[in-house]
C-alpha cells in the first residue's frame, strides 16, 4: 500500500473550540492505482490531500505514505518527505510568474535530493505537449497550457505519489478531459500513483476507483460545518 491510514483525525486549533475537519477510520491506496475522491466544496477534500502531502500535521491516528509514517513527523522532515516522494498539482496551477515554463519545471527538482536536470525538464514539457513553450512565462500561456506545465512540474522530482487538487476546476470545459487524460496517461507511464480530489461529477467517470468523500469523513457536518 502506498497510502494507509487508521483512525486519522485532523483537528484545527481555533482557540477554545478545536475544529475537527477530518475523521477517517480506515483507508488505503495500492501502488499504481488512480483514485478520484469526490465530494462537495468544504467537505475537507483539500485538507485530506494536504495531510497526505505532509503540508498539515496529523492530529491523531496513523498515516503512512510511501512507507513513511507521517504522524509525529517534524515539519522539516515532512518538507523533505514531500520534496522526495510527492508531486502536487493545484487547482489554480500556482506557477511562478517570474519564471519560464522550463524554470517552473526545474523548480520541481530543486528541493528534492535530485540534481536539477534541464534535459529532463525539457522532456517532461515535451511529454505534456509544450516543447514549443519552454521560454514562455505563465502570463503568456493559456490556462490549459499552464495546467500542463503544472503537471510537468509535479513529475519533475519523480514522485511515487501524485496528488491533484481539483486540477480541472479552473479549465475551460473543452480542456478538462484532455488535461485529465494526459494526467492519467503520464502517471501510467511514470509508474506513479494518482490521487485526485474533485467536486466535478463529470470527470470522475474516467477513474476506475472512486471514493465519495462523505462516505468516510465522519467529521463532515454539512457545507458550512466542514469548511476548513
Amino acid at each position, binding site marked *: 500500500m502506498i497510502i494507509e491510514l487508521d483512525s486519522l483525525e485532523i483537528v484545527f486549533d481555533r482557540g477554545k473550540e478545536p475544529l475537527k475537519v477530518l475523521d477517517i477510520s480506515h483507508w488505503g491506496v495500492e501502488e499504481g492505482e488512480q483514485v478520484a475522491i469526490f465530494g462537495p*466544496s*468544504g*467537505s475537507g*477534500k*483539500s*485538507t485530506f490531500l*494536504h495531510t497526505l*502531502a505532509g*503540508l*498539515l500535521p496529523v492530529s491523531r491516528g496513523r498515516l503512512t505514505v510511501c512507507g513513511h509514517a507521517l504522524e509525529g513527523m517534524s*515539519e*522539516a522532515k515532512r*518538507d*523533505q518527505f*514531500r*520534496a*522526495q516522494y*510527492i508531486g*502536487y498539482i*493545484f*487547482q*489554480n496551477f*500556482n506557477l*511562478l*510568474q*517570474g*519564471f519560464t515554463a522550463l*524554470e517552473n519545471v*526545474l*523548480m*520541481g*527538482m*530543486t*528541493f*528534492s535530493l535530485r540534481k*536539477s536536470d534541464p534535459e529532463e525538464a525539457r522532456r517532461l514539457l515535451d511529454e505534456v505537449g509544450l516543447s514549443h513553450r519552454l521560454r514562455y512565462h505563465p502570463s503568456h500561456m493559456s490556462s490549459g497550457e499552464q495546467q500542463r506545465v503544472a503537471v510537468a*512540474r509535479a513529475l519533475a*522530482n519523480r514522485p511515487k505519489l501524485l496528488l491533484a*487538487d*481539483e486540477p480541472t476546476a479552473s479549465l475551460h470545459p473543452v480542456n478538462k478531459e484532455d488535461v485529465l487524460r494526459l494526467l492519467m496517461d503520464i502517471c501510467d507511464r511514470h509508474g506513479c500513483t494518482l490521487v485526485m*480530489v474533485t*467536486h466535478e461529477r463529470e470527470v470522475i467517470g474516467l477513474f476506475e476507483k472512486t471514493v465519495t468523500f462523505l462516505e468516510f469523513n465522519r467529521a463532515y457536518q454539512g457545507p458550512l460545518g466542514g*469548511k*476548513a
Partner: protein
Amino acid sequence: MSFWRIVLKSLKHHRFSNSLAAISIATGIALLVAVYSFKEQSHNTFTQVGLGVDAILGPKGSPLQIVLNALYHLEDMPGKIKWTYFKEVEKERIVAQAIPFVVGHSYGGFRVNAIDGKFLTEFEYLPGKTFSFSEEEGGQGRPFSKSHEAVAGWEAAKQLNIKLGQTFNPVCGVQEGDPVHEKDKITFVGILTPTGTPHDRAIYIPLETFYGLEGHPLETAIMAEQEEYREISGAYIKIKRIRGGALHPGIQDLKFAINQSDRNQLVVPAEVMPRLHNIIGWIDRVLIAIAVILTVLSALFLFFSLLSALREMRRDLALFRALGATRKTVMGLVVAEALIISLVGGILGLTLGHWLIGMGAHFIKVETGVGFTAGYMSMIDWLVIPGTALLGLLGGLVPGIQAYRLGVLENLSPIS
C-alpha cells in the same frame, strides 16, 4: 535550479523596487566614502608636512595664513620681513637651519617659490628625508645652480607635462589674469621625486632670480645688491634637538622675543594646525552625520522595500514550501536577496564615492590648490563590503523571519 539562481530570478522579478533600494544604499555609501576620504586625506596632508619645519619666520598677520602659505602653498603671505632680521634669527644658538624664501609667483596654476638652494640639497622635508632627483624614483635632472633655472615638484611636473630644458615665463601673482614676466625665460633643470607632501605641487627657483625678474619695481632690483634693503616672504626654521629628539625648549623664548617685534613673528606649525583641524573636524562631523543618516535611511528603505516585495512574494514562497523547501530555505532566500541588494548598493556606492572624490578633487585643486587623490583608500573603504553585508543581513532579518513564519496553505490554493 540553484539557490542563488532562484534569488537572482526573484531579484529580477522585483527589479524596480530592488534597484531603488540599491541606489539609495549606494548614495549613502558614496557620501560616506567621499567624506571619509577627504577627511583622511586632508588630515594626512595637514599633519605630515609640519614635521619637516619646526617653525616659520614670517611677517605679522594670521599664523594660520602663514602656515597655509609657507607649507601648503595656499593663500597669500600677509607681508614681508627684512633680510637683516632673518640673518639675526639665523644666528640664534638654537637655530639649526634657516631657509629663506619669497612667494608670490606662479606658473600653470602652481606656485613658483624663490628659495635658498640649500632647500633642495640639505633640507629634510620629513625626518631623515631630503629631496631627490633619482630617475629610478621618478625624478630627473639636478638642483638649480644659477639664476633663471628651476626645479619642479613631481605633481606639478606631471600635471604640466614639464620636460627638462623646457622654459617658462613666471606669472607675477597667483591669480588668473595676473601679469606675466614676458622677458624672463626660466629653464627647468630638475624634477623632484614624489614626496607625498605639498612640495610636490610647487616649482622652485633660486632666491636671486626673484630680485632680477623684469617688471618688478626698482626697489626689488636694489634688494639683490644691497642686503639692508632686501626683503623676503619668510623662512623655514629648524630648531636644534635636545637628547631624546625633542625640540630645544629655548624655542618658546625665541618665539616670545621675535613676537615682541613690530613686523615679525615666529609661527610653530604644531601649535597652529590643531586650530585648522578643529575647523575641518567640525565640517567633517556634520558631513559624516549626514552620510550616516543617509545610510541609515537607505537601510530602512531596504527594509521596507523588502517587506513590500515580501507581500508580493508570499505566494511564490508558499509555493517553494509546497514543493519541499524548508522554512530555513525560504528565510534564506529573502535574506540572500537583501544581502545582494545591499552588496550591489555597497559596490556601486564605493565606485560612486571615488568618482565623487575625483570630481571634488578637481574643483578643490582649482579653488584651493590642495590635492586629493580619487584612488586613495580610506579606513571606510575597507569597511564598506563587510558593513553593507551586515546591513543587508540586518535589513533582511525581519522580512526573513516573516518568510520563515509564512503559512503555506493560506497563501496557496483555496480549500475545498
